[in-house]
């Protein structure tokens, strides 16, 4: 099973004729993802590596039955592209693009609610997600993943790869790994993913990789305490980051007393969630949780 994407995913790649879109469409296909269409306005009728290109997402859905989308459109047009996908009835819209203005993302999610669009946005500014052995949507390196019982959700891309590699090296496989993105406003947060993992039969434990900024980790801790029966292992990066400085991700900033690592670690401890002090500790904590 896994969450959000899997065997039944039929993917449309928005911005497929651009450098990033073309490159990653190829890699996703290589992993085994069912990439059924691409969209670039004005390039309908073309093919990219054998994938048919359409002018609109609606057309791609009609012709190919696409049900998920991956957005590689530049920041100035990405929120609009995601809205187009939602309006066409796409169920999962994964927005890789970094640097979208915060108010554009807010407007996108607000419009989705106001118009009753049912689809879920993952990201923006995220590496995408992988349901191991089934479908990879986004830019994660496919070869590090091995199928298994551990779900993973993270605000960081490379830190996810680091943890997945450690887990795979110890023979601990993964069900689905989701990068939710490093922006202040994101479509899918930790709680959304935890709820899915809780009801996913293939997931037996979850690794959550948080970082400074916002209160998504605190909300996750409260959710775990109230609603989760499966074990969760947490890690929080940025413990030594100074306040008031944006650490790479637009959302990774401690403002005043908001968003500190201490507050997040404390919230997890209070919820009975083990917090790894270093990345290297995670596999051991996961192994003991799986026993």
């Amino acid at each position: 099973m896994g969450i959000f994407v899997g065997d039944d995913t039929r993917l449309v790649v928005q911005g497929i004729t651009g450098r990033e879109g073309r490159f990653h469409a190829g890699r996703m296909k290589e992993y085994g993802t069912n990439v059924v269409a691409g969209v670039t306005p004005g390039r309908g009728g073309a093919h990219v590596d054998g994938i048919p290109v359409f002018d609109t997402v609606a057309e791609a859905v009609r012709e190919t039955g696409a049900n998920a989308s991956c957005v590689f459109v530049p920041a100035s047009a990405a929120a609009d592209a995601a809205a187009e996908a939602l309006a066409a009835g796409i169920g999962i819209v994964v927005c890789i693009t970094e640097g979208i203005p915060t108010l554009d993302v807010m407007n996108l999610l607000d419009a989705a609610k106001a118009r009753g669009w049912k689809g879920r946005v993952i990201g923006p500014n995220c590496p995408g997600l992988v349901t191991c052995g089934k479908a990879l949507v986004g830019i994660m390196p496919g070869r590090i993943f091995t199928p298994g019982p551990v779900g993973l959700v993270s605000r960081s891309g490379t830190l996810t790869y680091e943890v997945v590699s450690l887990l795979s090296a110890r023979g601990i496989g993964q069900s689905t790994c989701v990068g939710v993105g490093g922006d202040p406003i994101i479509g899918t947060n930790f709680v959304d993913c935890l709820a899915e993992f809780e009801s996913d039969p293939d997931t037996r434990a979850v690794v959550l990789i948080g970082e400074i900024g916002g209160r998504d980790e605190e909300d996750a801790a409260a959710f775990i305490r109230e609603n989760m029966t499966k074990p969760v292992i947490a890690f929080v990066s940025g413990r030594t980051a100074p306040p008031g400085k944006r650490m790479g991700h637009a959302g990774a900033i401690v403002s005043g007393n908001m968003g500190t690592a201490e507050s997040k670690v404390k919230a997890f401890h209070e919820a009975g969630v083990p917090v790894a002090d270093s990345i290297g500790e995670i596999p051991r904590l996961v192994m003991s949780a799986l026993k």
Partner: protein
Amino acid sequence: MKLHEYQAKEIMRRYGIRTPRGEVARTADEAGEIAARLGCAVAVKAQVHVGGRGKAGGIAVAATPDEARCQASRILGMNIKGLAVTKVLVEEAVKAAREYYAGITIDRARRSIVVMAASEGGVDIEEVAARSPEKIARLWVSPREGFEPWQARSLALAAGFDRKAVGAAGTYIASLFRLFVREDASLAEINPLMLSEDGHVIAADAKITIDDNALVRHPEYQALAEEDSDDPLEREAHRRGLTYVKLDGSIGVIGNGAGLVMATLDAISAEGGRAANFLDIGGGARADVVRNALELILMDGRVKAILINVFGGITRCDEVASGLLAAAESVSVRVPMVVRLAGTREEEGRALLREASVVAAEGMADAARQAVALASGGVKRWVSS
């Protein structure tokens, strides 16, 4: 990006929000001239991007132009929390009857804009929020809905503003909302929003932060960012297009991905060291980006050792290695360098570095341990692997 008070007030005036008359001065003489032109008692206020400048002595009231000159001469050249004061705002001093708070920011958890008002102003709003949250009236608004003066008046009344201040305050808070949306702010704050002794509502202090992601559609702020960067290294990093934050330690850090670099800083700290910077070369970085980053780190005289931590997903380790070799050719690498490469093409990357004078590390913790030892001078020589 944070704007200075004087810049924030200029923008607020464009939106019809009343502020004290004033101008910015870069020398004591200029400050005296401005005070003379204003012809009244003035406030002289340090323009730096840190909080607590009042407590640090960065704000003074002057009754005469001479006094303004003296105060400006004292404040210019002050160092507030590590930042040199190069500009002061000289503006008419306003006598307050009451001080309120008005602020607009992003509520990340609710994915919404939140408008806030409080009858206690001129103090740290976070302290008020922690001590007596009921004193802050809040309203969540989407940018599509908009926010009208009548809504702002209700908010101000709910916060406990005096009835005679509510009309103007409501207009200004609604204007502040328009400003927030049109200028792509992530924070717009008036603290205090003052009711003066002569009955005017006036923005006595102003703070605006612009969303960095939106700077592309506001070129005027981008220009301000360049001229205003507080630190020469940060300015240079900006010029080179690198995501860089200066920190206070001695180990230069380069990595790919914000989370990984933050975790690297934490690992260094766990080993008893301090990082000199945060530098993220991003995903898929090519050799020239790596060279560019290493050159920047080497400009920092505080750096005693360099730690390069790359997990190659999209980024190829052999590209990173070639970038390091290219940089070592163009500038002299005067400090030991610990390199940890993992992921895509790690074997090729390590092979390229075999002949170079770098310490190859196995994992993140190992890399941090070696970098800390080298930076503290615990190891005199380093081996090539």
